[in-house]
């Protein structure tokens, strides 16, 4: 077990920024999905799942293709 902990410690310089970036992006996107409930297609639950569980491609697809603005919904 001690071995595993050592291993973890050794990789911390990688893991810390990776986790901050990935989780940060996922959370930021999730908040955006909830606060702007306008989508070009799909629904909130779908986008939340995509954004939270598909690492960085999920948020990308959401921001580039899924995010709609209020205006396009009205038309």
């Amino acid at each position, binding site marked *: 077990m001690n071995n595993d902990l050592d*291993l973890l410690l050794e990789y911390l*310089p*990688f893991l810390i920024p*990776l986790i901050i970036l*990935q989780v940060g992006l996922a959370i*930021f996107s999730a908040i955006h999905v909830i606060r702007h409930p306008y989508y070009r297609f799909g629904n909130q639950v779908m986008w939340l799942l995509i954004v939270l569980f598909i690492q960085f*491609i999920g*948020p*990308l697809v959401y*921001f580039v293709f899924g995010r709609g603005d209020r205006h396009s919904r009205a038309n």
Partner: protein
Amino acid sequence: MNQWFGFFKKEWFESVKTYKLLLVVVIFSILGILNPFTAKITPVLLEQFMPAGTIMDLPEPTALDSWLQFYKNVPQMGLVVFILLFSTMMSKELEKGTLVILLTKGLRRSTVITTKYMMAICYWTLAILLSFTITYAYTAFYWDQSTLQHLFFAASCLYIFGLLLIAVTLWGNTYFATPYGGILVTFIGMIGLFITAIFPQSKSWNPLELATAPPQLLTGDLLPADVFVSYLLTLGLTLVFVVLTVVHFKRKLV
């Protein structure tokens, strides 16, 4: 010139407001960290998953492994992500008709294309710089990379190759005026390059070389002179595609 910078400022503002800056910074930082991380952890993981008792003679990872990851991840993952991000540059404006008013106000059509391309170049530069610097820093910290050849030239190959793909995407996106037009054209173009690469003779000039040669450049198996023709051809093709886009857009109904 005023007009050019005015519209360029709008492009910048738009890219920030549509989270492109955020996505490029985050994704290419992640990629930059992933390269040395994968290189370092792969042998350890392999060891763990091997049945107990198997005697493995895994070599210690080196700086080269880290850069091999870079030249695997950035062209595959990074470039795809980047093309996706910038695949709607023109179609978004053409579909919504946001350019109509500005064009009747005297906005030059060439300005529209060149500012958009320039903006994409800026972002691509940022993306490559970010992941290159991060990978470089980690690699320098863990390994000795003094044995590697042409480190910066190899990166510039990938950079130039990206410029060509962005130009092709912009052309497809303008020509077909749909979000998928650019992606499709680029995809077909890539397939074309891969098919050409089947013939060994094409090795001396195929632009695809720029994406596949860097590992050999690093080890010294290839010299910059070997990809010289590809390098120039790629730059030339990039220019051709940008000009084609401008020419097409000049006569396009908006």
